[in-house]
């Protein structure tokens, strides 16, 4: 095996060249790397949030809320439909994920079935005697959930973008989760507050015929809601359930200041349909109170002094400047189809990130020097050759990370340092074997030949087992730990390559040039 095929030499050359080329941009400042011409590799290793600082939020969409809301609206249309047809019923309500009703007159059941089935083609209807239950078909349910998740992601993206966060990553994870990564954001309290709001806004008339006191005592009229004030001062409002105009007809919203009181307010503008409805509703109810409701809380309940026909208006609650900005942002970005819950947060400040990078660099360099010195002193010339391969190995890892745009995390750096220590293993195996073969009386060439061929299977076996562990870690790990699995796996592959191909090429070249009588090993 002292003979080295030409194509192999070329292959080794190409791999090393590519590795160095892709690693190179990491050694110049980022702004300069970005200026490199497009045909040159210019991507740097992308740093994980734990290194560059930033916030990782795992959100869950409360998807059941979407289903529940739909079923509730279905119940409302069932009530209307049955009343219109003068069919008497009882027990109309929600049962699990279905709307149920019992028809009093057995003769009318068939008619009711026909009417209710026509309500929504995506539902399926089951009946048991007089009891009819309607639920979404499995497919419609799945579609609706999926649409809600996709819409949630879109709204989250809009809200995050509106805050001016640079390069956020927002992606779906699993069935009903959203992963939000915000580089450079170390105190995500504002974003968390923004994401914590569903921001469903609607305009309602205030129920002035019934008293709030009576409602608070438990006698809430069927067409009304008893809702608290948004200010948390315990004030309650009795408002009509019927939506006068819904918030999804808003097309713009901006924070502003009231021209008279100079207090922060939020201005808004409807689209043409919304403007028409708002105009008509306000024209009919001049002198009455209407309520602006956000997430089932009343922001304010002003008097309609005159018909509002221009399609725009302003909300004056008692906002802080930040509060007005946030509300305007939420209204601009639109409402979430369902509430979000934050399941997990991991935020790292830029200070800790920078410290980790610095510590990681020092640990890698010192570890590298220690291993290089150790190898050189143990194996002499061969040790130097292995050291050269080790340095190229590091460049290959860096190049592979840049090329694959894999994320480098703090455990990832640990993986690299570990690789520095373990990468020489393959060389150690070969060199020890060569030593043995020399002791057994072989000539240098045949000892090297035997050393490489006998150590080969051992190297493969030993490395594949570690690779198995690393791949499983990747499959089951999350976040930074995955970064460790990535660098460890890349490190195993590159160190196998450098040991089996590169060091061997060095050794063989040296052997051919000098034709030694004995090995300096």
């Amino acid at each position, binding site marked *: 095996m002292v003979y080295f095929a030409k194509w192999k030499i070329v292959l080794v050359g190409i791999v090393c060249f590519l590795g160095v080329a892709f690693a190179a941009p990491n050694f110049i400042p980022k702004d300069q790397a970005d200026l490199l011409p497009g045909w040159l590799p210019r991507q740097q290793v992308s740093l994980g949030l734990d290194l560059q600082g930033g916030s990782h939020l795992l959100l869950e969409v409360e998807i059941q809320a979407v289903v529940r809301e739909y079923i509730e609206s279905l119940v409302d249309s069932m009530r209307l439909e049955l009343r219109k047809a003068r069919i008497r019923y009882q027990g109309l309500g929600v049962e699990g994920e279905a709307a149920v009703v019992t028809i009093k007159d057995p003769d009318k059941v068939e008619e009711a079935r026909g009417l209710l089935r026509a309500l929504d083609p995506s539902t399926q209807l089951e009946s048991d005697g007089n009891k009819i239950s309607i639920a979404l078909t499995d497919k419609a349910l799945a579609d609706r959930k999926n649409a809600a998740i996709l819409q949630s992601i879109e709204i989250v993206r809009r809200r995050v973008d509106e805050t001016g966060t640079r390069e956020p990553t927002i992606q779906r994870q699993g069935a009903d989760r959203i992963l939000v990564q915000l580089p450079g954001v170390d105190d995500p309290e504002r974003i968390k507050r923004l994401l914590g709001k569903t921001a469903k806004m609607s305009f309602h008339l205030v129920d002035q015929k019934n008293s709030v006191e009576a409602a608070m005592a438990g006698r809430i009229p069927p067409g009304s809601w008893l809702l608290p004030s948004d200010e948390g001062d315990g004030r309650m409002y009795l408002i009509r359930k019927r939506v006068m105009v819904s918030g999804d007809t808003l097309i713009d919203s901006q924070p502003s200041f009231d021209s008279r009181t100079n207090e922060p307010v939020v201005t808004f503008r409807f689209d043409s349909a919304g403007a028409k409805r708002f105009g008509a509703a306000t024209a009919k109810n001049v002198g009455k109170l209407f309520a602006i409701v956000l997430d089932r809380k009343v922001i304010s309940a002003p008097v309609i002094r005159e018909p509002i026909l221009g399609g725009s208006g302003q909300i004056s609650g008692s906002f802080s400047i930040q509060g007005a900005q946030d509300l305007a942002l939420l209204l601009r970005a639109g409402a979430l189809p369902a509430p979000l819950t934050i399941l997990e947060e991991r*935020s790292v*400040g830029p200070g800790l990130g920078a410290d980790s990078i610095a510590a990681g660099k020092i640990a890698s360099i010192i570890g590298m020097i220690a291993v290089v010195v150790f190898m050189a002193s*143990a194996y002499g010339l061969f040790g130097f050759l292995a050291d050269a391969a080790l340095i190229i190995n590091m460049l290959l890892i860096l190049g592979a990370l840049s090329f694959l745009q894999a994320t480098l995390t703090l455990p990832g750096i640990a993986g690299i340092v570990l690789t520095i220590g373990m990468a020489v293993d393959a060389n150690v195996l070969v060199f020890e074997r060569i030593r043995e073969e020399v002791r057994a009386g072989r000539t240098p060439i045949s000892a090297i030949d035997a050393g490489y061929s006998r150590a080969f299977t051992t190297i493969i076996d030993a490395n594949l087992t570690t690779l198995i562990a690393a791949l499983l870690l990747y499959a089951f790990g999350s976040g930074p730990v995955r970064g460790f699995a990535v660098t460890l796996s890349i490190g195993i592959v590159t160190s196998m390559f450098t040991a089996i191909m590169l060091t061997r090429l060095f050794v063989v070249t040296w052997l051919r040039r000098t034709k030694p009588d004995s090995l300096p090993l």
Partner: protein
Amino acid sequence: MLGFNLIPANINLRFISKKKAFFAFSALLVLASVGLFTIKGLSYGIDFKGGLMIEVRTPEAAPIADMRKRLSGLGLGEVALQEFGQPSDVLIRIQRQDGGEKAQQAAVVKVKEALGPGIEYRRTEFVGPKVSDELFWDGVLAVSYAILAIMAYIWFRFEWQFGLGAVIALLHDVLTTIGIFALLGLEFNLSTVAAILTIAGYSINDTVVVYDRVRENLRKFKKMPLAELLNNSINQTLSRTLMTSVSTLLALFSLYFLGGEVIRDFSFAMIWGVIIGTYSSICLAVPLLLHLNVRRGGGPQAEPSKEAAAPASP
């Protein structure tokens, strides 16, 4: 000659004859580990237990006592503060909050309000009950699958006796690592699982190298008594085993001392793993083969030509 040998070339240490001592020692280690794990238990980090972890830096040496007083007044349950790396850095741990996912979030806000302004938040992490349960089981699955996969690989490449021996050594390393974490009360979190998987990989790596030599020698020396053969195999690979361990330890010590506070426990776990893994592959994995009924002269790996030649030369 430039190089040096960590150990003399023709070393012949009697490993196999001391196997009883090794077995006893290892059994003791494993029993102690299991005992510590069941009685003392592991101090799980927020990854597996849920809760809050906040690392802060104050402008001067941190007033830990004052901070503790302010935080324990919040009614958030168990609050632990510890200096982290330097006097101005404090790591705050707060137990998982009752009341589901939203309660964790609310607790973060409370803590930040209580600590007031002028503090650098270096790290804020909270893990809700749902995610921590998932992470825990993912960790258990990852380690179990890794052990199974490695066992399958060894079984496929060697024979079942070797697979069993390797896995016993592997379990020994994993269990004692868990034991040392319980003993020292180190935080057991996601990176510890990563470390354990790496230890598993390293331990097997070491074992495979020695086993490879055993297999080679089994083919070469059909008449040699198994104990002697195993002992020779260990000695022949001893130099490599130690060289690799030392070089890996050099890198890991650099990581332990210079890599920063955040990954110190992680580095410690791996240092322990390399040491125990080296020990177990030499003193456990190989002597175990004596008791696992290793087949001599043949087996799937033996060259057929030798098999055919055997009857002709009795």
